[in-house]
């Protein structure tokens, strides 16, 4: 009897579908709701106050937001996160894909190269930041070495040049992240059926064309995964910049996350920090929501139909 009823319940009441899995997920759901949603609400409420060192309920309306948008520093931070996000994502994808394709050419010592390329990813952002800080330092880094080798025309002042410093940060980040994308792509490439390659070569399609027009679209899930992981890293970038430039020269490489942390911990300006973090949250939702909706919901729907 039960064997008949249970599937019937499942069919008509979707809530009971996979009930065991849902129970198992319950703690995670509860934690997400209380911690994430709770914190967001808390931050929003206190962003409407003039809290300084400790949170106090002293309502000032949207003053903190008004002040935030008047800050030159905030403008710089927002601009930087877009530059960083764009260069870092594109850089990682292109270099990661290229490395994967090159390694996929059945070369000798493949595992050695794979290890070398993946190695930077094993380092924390703080170490990455310090390494590149030394490499790019004009007084004792690469520029100095080149000068000592007689190449005095060589100039590498990115780190101390306020217009280029953010790109120096991007280089360090791409160096760290590209290997990870490479591994993802390589796994995807290894999953491509031999027959596809055979038929492509029978058709006489050039190798580079096969990669770009046939293989790359087949790697779509890998690309999506890579973008999601990279994008999550973009928004929260903090430690890399702290180690590499500390937001300098001046505040030329500051980011929204740094702005929040600064106001939160060293400037005793909690209200402002909350306001900035709420703006960060809203922007992330605005960018990610439509795309995530398409990628994870609409596409499945069409695929199922």
């Amino acid at each position: 009897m039960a064997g008949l009823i249970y599937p019937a319940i499942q069919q008509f009441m979707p809530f009971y579908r996979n009930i065991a899995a849902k129970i198992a997920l319950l703690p995670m759901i509860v934690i997400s709701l209380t911690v994430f949603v709770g914190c967001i609400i808390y931050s929003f409420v206190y962003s409407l106050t003039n809290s300084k060192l400790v949170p106090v309920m002293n309502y000032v309306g949207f003053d903190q937001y008004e002040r935030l948008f008047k800050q030159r520093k905030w403008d710089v931070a927002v601009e930087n996160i877009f530059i960083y996000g764009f260069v870092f994502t594109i850089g990682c994808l292109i270099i990661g894909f290229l490395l994967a394709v090159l390694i996929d050419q059945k070369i000798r010592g493949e595992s050695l190269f794979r290890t070398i390329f993946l190695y930077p990813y094993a380092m924390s952002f703080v170490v990455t930041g310090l390494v590149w800080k030394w490499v790019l330092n004009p007084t004792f880094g690469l520029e100095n070495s080149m000068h000592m080798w007689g190449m005095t025309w060589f100039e590498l002042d990115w780190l101390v040049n306020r217009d280029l410093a953010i790109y120096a940060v991007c280089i360090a980040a791409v160096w760290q992240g590209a290997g990870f994308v490479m591994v993802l792509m390589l796994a995807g490439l290894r999953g491509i059926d031999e027959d596809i390659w055979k038929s492509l070569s029978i058709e006489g399609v050039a190798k580079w064309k096969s990669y770009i027009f046939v293989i790359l679209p087949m790697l779509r899930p890998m690309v999506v995964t890579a973008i999601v992981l990279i994008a999550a890293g973009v928004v929260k970038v903090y430690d890399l910049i702290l180690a590499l430039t500390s937001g300098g020269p001046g505040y030329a490489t500051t980011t929204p996350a740094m702005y929040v942390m600064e106001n939160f911990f060293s400037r005793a300006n909690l209200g402002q920090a909350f306001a900035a973090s709420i703006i960060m949250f809203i922007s992330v939702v605005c960018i990610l929501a439509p795309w995530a909706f398409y990628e994870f919901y609409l596409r499945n729907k069409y695929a199922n139909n």
Partner: protein
Amino acid sequence: MKKFFSILLTIFIPLSFTNVSKAAGHMEAEVIHWWTSGGEQAAISEFAKAWEEMGNTWIDTAITGGDNARGTTVNRIIGGNPPTAAQFNVSKQFVDLVEQGLLQSLEEVASAEGWRDFIYPPELIETCEFEGEFYCVPVNIHSWQWMWINNDVYKQVGLPVPQTFEEFLAGAPKIQEAGIIPLALGGQTWQESGMFGVVSSSILGFPHMQKIFRDKDVDTLRDGRFEDVLNTYRELNQFTDEGSPGRLWNDTTAMVIEGKAAMQVMGDWARGEFAVAGKEAMVDYSCVIPGKEKYVALGGDVFVFPKNDDPKVKDAQLAMASMMVNQTVQAKFNNAKGSLPMRLDVDTSAADACMQMGLDLIQNPDAIMRESDDWNTPAFTAAWDDIISEFRNDPNYTVAQVMDDLEGVLTSGL
């Protein structure tokens, strides 16, 4: 809500939990501070030694960087696990803690020992006193108002040691020609704004500064003299090197010590670096308080004592507060730290020529200068410093724009 906030912070800030000893007569105290360099460690250990000689236990929680240390203190207080004592600067940094009733009043011991009679200068009392009660212990005085100069460099180029920024600027091109960096400056916001503060007080004088920073008087800011400060500051910055961004202050001082650079503007804690390098004041290096009128700024450190439910902790806190202002302890501590003591009746026979200069100056009440952060919140000084740092680093940021932005901060009500 406070509880919730504490949980939130606990996730981000690793806390070190300590058990407060219940044993009678023997007291345990955990002290958070940011004194981690060689000279600083020597200084704090004088406190620890004195505390342990009293038969107590000292738990040292040293956290690198003032910002981090203060952040940890605040988070632990709000999280319900306060340290016995914690370091702050002579400033408005801890006002909120007092207003929220989170700090232990020290009035009991302060009035019993007559702190108001011996703490000098009296401005330090103002820093610690709220509604007639003491809430912090000033332990030393540090002044930013110094130029540290390598004498050999000036001998080499045949120039006298400069006494003002104008004289320095006049000689700077000659030093540059000799292949030496005229101005050593570490490109971190606090160093840039610290030097800016010295330039402004040496040009404007303290009464003028007071009108701007204490009274928030826009007309004083706009009377045309502040532009001179900005221009002088911009001129000075032409004489730094390109390795400046992000350089630490002590690495920068080392450049002056080694003769790679001629001059650094830095607080009197730089003296420790010269001493460690075996250099002699006024022989190998000069310390100059720039400007026609000479000031000693009233920076420095205080300790606060967060409230605790345990009455034993309060006893320990009052005992420690009393120990910190003790004459003998003050003498040992400040000799190690290189700072000026917070009372005049302390033995300073070990002082070198530079420290003596500060000691002589501080006895004259007109020469005592206060800084922006004595009157203003960290949020205000940080917003101000951002503009100064950006002004130094962005050549397209015009003086007129900077003046508008500074006025914006002054009237922001931060």
